[in-house]
C-alpha cells in the first residue's frame, strides 16, 4: 500500500518536472490582501523572488505540496486569479544606492523626496548570517549623544543596543535626532529608520536633519502604514543589512529604529493573516525572535567597525512591563525610560533616572566621565528618593542638613535640563558638576 502511494506520488512529481512549461511558472489561484496563492512553481526555493506578470512582485513565503504562498512587496496593478507567475531563480533581495546619503529612501532603491529611482543600485540581502560570537569584540568606545543625562549617567557605547522607551509625546524621536546631530564630524554613518510614521513626520525629520547639517552622513529609510505591511516588516532588517555592509568595511554606524512597537504590530497582522497560532496578547510565539535576531545585529566587530542601535518603543500609560516592552528590554543592553510626568514638569529630556539603566555603564566612558558620572548618578538617585518622601512637607520646617541636600539635589537635576538640539561636549558636562566634585575634597 505504502509503495503504491509513494510510486504514484513520485510519478506525478516526475511528470510535472519534465514538463518545462510548468517548471518555473505558475498560476495565481487565490488573491489575498498582501499575499497570493499560486499553483505550479514546482521548483522554487524558499525566499525566491517572483513576478506576477508585470503587475506585481514578491517572494516565496511558504511552499506546500500543491501550492506556493507568495508575499507581495509591490503591486502596480490589480492581480487576478489565473495571472501567470514567474520565479526569477534568485533569492529575493532589496536595492540600495550609495547616493542615498542625505536622502529619504525606501528599501527598493527609490529616492522618495525626488520621487524617482536611483541609477546605480546594488542588491542587498534582507538578512545576512549572524556575526559569529567569536567575531564580536567588547563594547567599550563611547557613542556621545550630547545629552548630559545620557552621556554622563547612562552612557551608550559603540555597538550597544540602548532602548528608548516612553509614552507618546515624551521626546523619544528627539533623542534619536539629537544623537544623530551630535555625530557631526565624528565619522559615524547614521541611519534613521521610520517604521509606520506618518509622511508629515518623516518630512519634518528630513528638514530638521538637513537644516542642522546632518544630511551629509545620514540616511533616512522610511516605510508607511499605507503601504503593503510586508514592506514595513522588511524595512528594519534591510536597514540593518545596509548597516552591516558598512560595518564590515570598519565603519561605525548608528541605527535608530523608530519604532519597534509598530513593527511588532505589523508582524502580528501578517502572522495572523497567515493563520499562525496567536500567543500572549495575540502576538505569534516568535515575536521575541523577530526582534532578537534584528537587534543582535548591533555589535562591536573585531575588525573595528560597529553598529549601535537605538530602538524606540512606544508605551501606553507609562507601563513598561507589557509584553513587547519587556521582550525588547530583555534583548537590549539598557534602556532610557522617558516619563510623561517629567515632560510636563519641563524636566527635558524627560528621562526617568530611576528606571533607566545601562548594562555597560562606566565601561564605555573615559576616566573623568566615569568618575563624575557615577558621583552624579548616586547623588541624583538619593535626591530623587528623598524628594519623593518629603514631597508634601514644608521645606522651611526641615533641618538645616536636609534643606541643603534638597537644594543641592535640585541643582543636580536642573543641570540635566537641556533643550532639543543643544548638545554639550564632555568638558561642558564635567564642568557643570565641578561643584559636586569640589565638595568632596
Amino acid at each position, binding site marked *: 500500500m505504502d509503495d503504491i*502511494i509513494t510510486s504514484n506520488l513520485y510519478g506525478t512529481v516526475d511528470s510535472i*518536472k519534465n514538463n518545462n512549461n510548468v517548471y518555473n511558472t505558475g498560476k495565481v489561484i487565490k488573491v489575498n490582501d498582501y499575499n497570493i496563492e499560486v499553483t505550479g512553481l514546482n521548483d522554487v526555493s524558499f525566499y525566491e523572488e517572483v513576478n506576477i506578470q508585470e503587475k506585481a512582485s514578491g517572494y516565496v513565503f*511558504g511552499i506546500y505540496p500543491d501550492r506556493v504562498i507568495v508575499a507581495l512587496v509591490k503591486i502596480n496593478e490589480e492581480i487576478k486569479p489565473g495571472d501567470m507567475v514567474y520565479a526569477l531563480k534568485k533569492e529575493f533581495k532589496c536595492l540600495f544606492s550609495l547616493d542615498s546619503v542625505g536622502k529619504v529612501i525606501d528599501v527598493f532603491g527609490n529616492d522618495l523626496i525626488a520621487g524617482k529611482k536611483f541609477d546605480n543600485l546594488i542588491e542587498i540581502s534582507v538578512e545576512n548570517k549572524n556575526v559569529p560570537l567569536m567575531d564580536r569584540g567588547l563594547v567599550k568606545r563611547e557613542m556621545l549623544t550630547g545629552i548630559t543625562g545620557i552621556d554622563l549617567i547612562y552612557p551608550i557605547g559603540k555597538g550597544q543596543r540602548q532602548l528608548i522607551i516612553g509614552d507618546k509625546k515624551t521626546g523619544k524621536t528627539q533623542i534619536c535626532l539629537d544623537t544623530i546631530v551630535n555625530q557631526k564630524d565624528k565619522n559615524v554613518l547614521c541611519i534613521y529608520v521610520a517604521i509606520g510614521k506618518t509622511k508629515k513626520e518623516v518630512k519634518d525629520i528630513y528638514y530638521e536633519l538637513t537644516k542642522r547639517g546632518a544630511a551629509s552622513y545620514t540616511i533616512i529609510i522610511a516605510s508607511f502604514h499605507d503601504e503593503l505591511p510586508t514592506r514595513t516588516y522588511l524595512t528594519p532588517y534591510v536597514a540593518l543589512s545596509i548597516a552591516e555592509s558598512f560595518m564590515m568595511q570598519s565603519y561605525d554606524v548608528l541605527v535608530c529604529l523608530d519604532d519597534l512597537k509598530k513593527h511588532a504590530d505589523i508582524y502580528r497582522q501578517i502572522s495572523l493573516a497567515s493563520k499562525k*497560532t496567536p500567543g500572549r496578547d495575540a502576538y505569534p*510565539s516568535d515575536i521575541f*525572535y523577530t526582534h532578537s535576531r534584528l537587534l543582535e545585529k548591533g555589535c562591536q566587530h573585531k575588525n573595528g567597525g560597529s553598529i549601535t542601535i537605538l530602538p524606540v518603543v512606544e508605551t501606553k500609560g507609562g507601563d513598561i512591563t507589557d509584553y513587547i516592552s519587556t521582550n525588547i528590554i530583555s534583548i537590549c543592553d539598557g534602556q532610557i525610560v522617558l516619563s510623561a510626568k517629567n515632560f510636563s514638569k519641563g524636566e527635558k529630556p524627560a528621562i526617568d533616572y530611576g528606571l533607566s539603566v545601562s548594562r555597560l555603564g562606566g565601561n564605555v566612558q573615559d576616566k573623568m566621565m566615569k568618575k563624575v558620572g557615577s558621583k552624579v548618578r548616586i547623588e541624583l538617585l538619593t535626591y530623587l528618593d528623598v524628594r519623593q518622601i518629603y514631597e508634601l512637607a514644608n521645606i522651611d520646617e526641615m533641618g538645616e542638613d536636609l534643606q541643603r541636600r534638597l537644594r543641592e539635589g535640585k541643582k543636580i537635576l536642573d543641570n540635566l535640563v537641556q533643550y532639543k538640539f543643544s548638545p554639550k561636549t564632555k568638558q561642558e558636562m564635567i564642568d557643570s558638576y565641578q561643584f559636586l566634585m569640589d565638595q568632596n575634597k
Partner: protein
Amino acid sequence: MVVGKIISIFDISIEVILSDDSVKIGDILVSQDDNNYAFEVVSINNVSATCISLNTTRGLKKGSSVIRLSDGIEIEYSDKILGRVFDSYGSPIDDKTIESVNKRNINHGTVSLKDVDVSASILWTGIKVIDFFAPLQKGFRMGLLGGAGVGKTVLIKELIHNVYASINANAIFVGAGERSREGKELYEDMKESNLLDKMSMVFGAMGDNPVSRSKSVYAGLTMAEYLRDEKSQDVLLFIDNIYRFMQAKSEIATELKQLLIENGYPADMANEISKIEERISSTDKGSITSFQAIYIPADDYNDEAVQTITSYMDGQIVLDRKVAELGLYPAIDVFKSTSKLVDVEKIGERHFKLIEEVLRYLTRYKELEEIIAILGIEELSEEDKRIFYRSRKLRYYFSQPMFVAEPFTNIPGQFVKIEDVLIDVENILNGVYDNVDESKFLFIGKYHE
C-alpha cells in the same frame, strides 16, 4: 543515500516525502546539494516526515533530495570538551578544530528513580552568604534570579573558582537564548581569570533560530553528564536562561502547527521541562549541581512556563540591585534566597536557629531604617539600638572579597568555612563584637581568630 525529497517549506518546518522507511524520529537529514541545510525529524507518517530546520531555510529548494547524516545531534564526549566553546549542534566555534575521540547523542533518558541520590552531601561553596542562607546539596537545581548588572557573572565565576579549588570539579556554561555580547564577554573574562580550561561552554544565542536555542541545553547537559558519569565529578552547570529554552520550544510548536495552551506555550511543556531537569541530579557516581537563570516574561510571575520551571527548583539565589548599590557584594537578597536544605533536620538546629535569628534582626533593621529616617537614631529603645548596630555588622559581614575580583579590588579572595561563619554570626548576635567598629566587618573572610 537519498532518503527522500522536500515537498513543503514554511519557515523552519519542512516536509520530506520519504523513499526509505528506515528514517526515524530524531534523525538528522541534510540537503544533497548543500549540506548547510540540515533538519531534524520530529514526526513521521507512512509517506512523509516532518522536520525542523537547524539553520535557515532561505534558499532551500522544493524537490531537493535529502540524505541521512546521522541519527541525532552529537557532541564530543571526552576530556577534549574542556576549555572549548561549542555551538548547539556540537561544533566548536572558537577557531580551533577538535579531534574527536568519542561522540554522543545529546538526547538521553533521564536518571531513573533508582539512581537518584537524595542523600548526597552538602556542597559548600565557601561564599558566606550562600552557605549560610541557601546552602547547596550536590545535585541541586537552583534558580538564579536578578537583573543585569548586579554581579551575576562575578558570582558565577567565583562559584566555578571555589568549587574547582575545593573538590576539583569542572563547570559547564550553557548560553541559551541570551545576548551574544554577554557570551563573548564571559569568554574573555574566563580567559583572563584563567578559568577557561576548567570549563566548557555552549552557545545558542538569541539571534539563532529556535532549534539552536533549545538544543544548546541538551548539548550542555550531555557534557555535564560526561563529567559526572565518566569522570565521577561533582559538576557545576550554569544555564542562562532556562526560560528561553521553553520559549524556543513554543516557537517550534507554533511552526509545527501544534495546538497551544494559554500564552502560546506548547501543551507538553511540563514534559519538556522535566526531560531537562530530571537529567540534572546526583547519582552514586557524581552529581550535577545547576544554577539556572529564569527570565520573567512581561513581569508576570504567574506565567505558566515560569511556574512550571520553578516547581523543579530546589532553591533560589536572588540578586538585588539595592544591595549592589550599597556596594555590598555578592549582592544577595537574603530574604528571598533560600533552599530546601534550610530545614532543622538537614543543617542542624544551630545553623537553622541562627538563620531565623538573623532574618528576624534584618527584618527589624529594615523597619528601624524608616523610623530613623524620620526620628533619628537617639529615639530608639536600647533593644532596638542593639538590633540596629548588630544588623549593620551582619550586613557588612555577609559581603566577601572574591578571588575572581582580586584584580579590581586588590583585596585577596577568601574561602570561608561554614563553621567559621556560624561562630562569627553567633558572636555578632550575642554582642561579643559590640565594641568593634562595623567597618571592620566589611569585605573580610572569617572574623574570629
